[in-house]
C-alpha cells in the first residue's frame, strides 16, 4: 500500500481547508479591494493624445476607433512657419470587444492611456459598452498613482498626469 500515506494526507488537506475561513468575497454586499495595478478599465488623457494611431494598430481586437485631423497652429515665434498639429476628433474603445490585454497602454508613447481598477461599468445594451473620449477621460480621475519600485531599484516610478 504505497499510496496510503498520500491518501491520508489528502484527507488532511481538505479537512484543514474546511476549518479555515473561506476566501470568497460576498461581492454585491462587500466590495473587494482591487490590486494596485488591476486592469479594470482604460482611461484616456486626451491632451496627451496625438492621434498617432499606435494603440489602434497594435490592438489585437481592433476595438479602438480613432479619427483625427491635421490643422495649422500659429508659429511659436514671429515670422516662423505655422506648425502642423493633430487634433483628436474621436477616440472610442469598445469594451465589448476589448480583451484587457493592455497592449495599447504599453505601446502609447505619449502617456495618454492608463489602467484604472474600476470595473463596475456593465450595461444593459452591448452598444453602451462603447466608451467615447469624454467617458474615457472621466476614468482618469480613478487612475491610482504608480507604486514605487522595490527598494534598491534605480527606476523612478512613472507619474500619472493629473
Amino acid at each position, binding site marked *: 500500500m504505497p499510496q496510503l500515506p498520500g*491518501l491520508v494526507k*489528502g*484527507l488532511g*488537506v*481538505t*479537512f484543514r*481547508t*474546511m476549518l*479555515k475561513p*473561506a*476566501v*470568497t468575497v*460576498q461581492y454585491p454586499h462587500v466590495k473587494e479591494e482591487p490590486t494596485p495595478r488591476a486592469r479594470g478599465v482604460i482611461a484616456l488623457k486626451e491632451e496627451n493624445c496625438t492621434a498617432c494611431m499606435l494603440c489602434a494598430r497594435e490592438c489585437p481586437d481592433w476595438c479602438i476607433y480613432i479619427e483625427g485631423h491635421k490643422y495649422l497652429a500659429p508659429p511659436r515665434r514671429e515670422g516662423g512657419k505655422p506648425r502642423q498639429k493633430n487634433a483628436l476628433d474621436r477616440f472610442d474603445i469598445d469594451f465589448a470587444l476589448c480583451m484587457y490585454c493592455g497592449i495599447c497602454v504599453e505601446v502609447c508613447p505619449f502617456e495618454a492611456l492608463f489602467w484604472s481598477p474600476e470595473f463596475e461599468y456593465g450595461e444593459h445594451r452591448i452598444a453602451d459598452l462603447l466608451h467615447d473620449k469624454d467617458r474615457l477621460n472621466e476614468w482618469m480621475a480613478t487612475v491610482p498613482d504608480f507604486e514605487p519600485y522595490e527598494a534598491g531599484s534605480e527606476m523612478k516610478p512613472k507619474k500619472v498626469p493629473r
Partner: protein
Amino acid sequence: MVSLIDAVELAYWQQTGIKVAVILMVIPAGAIILGYVFLMKMMSHMQSRLGPMEAGPHGVLQLVADGVKFLQKEDIFPEKADRMVFALAPLVVLISTFLLFVVVPVGPDLIVEDLDTGIFFALAVSSISVIGVLMAGWASANKYALLGGLRAGGQLIAYELPLLLAVVGVVIQAGTLSMQGIVVAQADGAIFGFDFIGNPFILTQALGFFIFLAAVQAELTQPPFDMPVAESEIVGGYQVEYTGFRFLLFFMGEFGTAFAFAGIASVLFLGGWWVPGFDPDDNILNWLGPAVMFGKVMFVAFLIFWVRFTYPRFREDQLQAFAWKVLIPLSLINIAATAVLKVVF
C-alpha cells in the same frame, strides 16, 4: 410500538399509512439535509469558498429553490426513447431507496418493520437500484447513457459483494440478522468486562466498517467511484437524457440512499439508537433514539462526503481491481478472523 402507537389503538392500515407517510417525508428531508450540509456547504468550505449564500440565511433554502426550478422544467423524452421504461427508471431507483428505510430502526419501537432478516432485506433491496439504472441507461437511446448504465451495472455488482461480506462479520458477532437485534447485541456487549458504552462493533469490526463505507461509496456512485456518471467523459452517464422532475428523482434517490446507508452503517457499527446508561427497552429511548441516530447518521455521512470531496475518480480497471483484489479478499479475511474469534471466545 408498545407505548407510542398502542396507546392510540390504530388499525393495521392506519399504522401502515403513518409509516409510509413518515418515510415519504424522511427521503426528501434526508436528501435536502445531506445535500445542503455536505454537498453545498462542506464541499464549498473544503474548496475555500462559501457556497450558496443568498437563498435564506447562509443559503439554507437553496435546495428548495432548486427543487422548484426542477419542477418548472419541461419533461423531455428523447425521440427514440423507450418511453415507458424511461419514465419508470427513476421510480425504480427511488423505490429501492424507499424500501431501505423499512428496516432502519431509530428507537426500540421506532422501526417500520422489524424483520428477522433485516440487514439481509436491506442489502437485497439496495440492489434493486441497479435495475433502475440499467433501465435508464437502456431506455435513453443514447450511447453515453448506455455506457453509463453498463458501467453502473458492473460497478454495483462488483461492490455489492464487499458490502455484503463486510456485513457478515457484524452478523456473526451479533448472532442475528435483525437490525434491532444487532443494536441490542451492541448495547448488551462489553469490552473486557467494561460495559458502559456497550460494544459498538466499530471497535472489533473496524476493517468491516472501512470496507462497508468504501462499498457504500461505490453503491452511491459517488467520487472516487463515479465512473458511471463521470460527467467529464460520459456527461452524466445514465442521467444524461433526464430533465426536470425525473432528474430530481435520481438526485433524491442518490442522497436518500446515502442517508439510509449512513443509518444502516450507524446501526451496524456505531451502536444505533442506543444511548449509554439506558436499558435498551427503556421507553425514553423512543425519544432520545432518533436524535442519537441523526447525530450518528450525520457523522457517517460526513465520512462518506469527506472522501467524496477529496479523491479524484478511479479509472475503470482500478475500480474493478479495488473491489475484486482488495476489498473482497480483505472482507473474506475479516469473516474468517471473526468466525474463529467468535468460536474461541
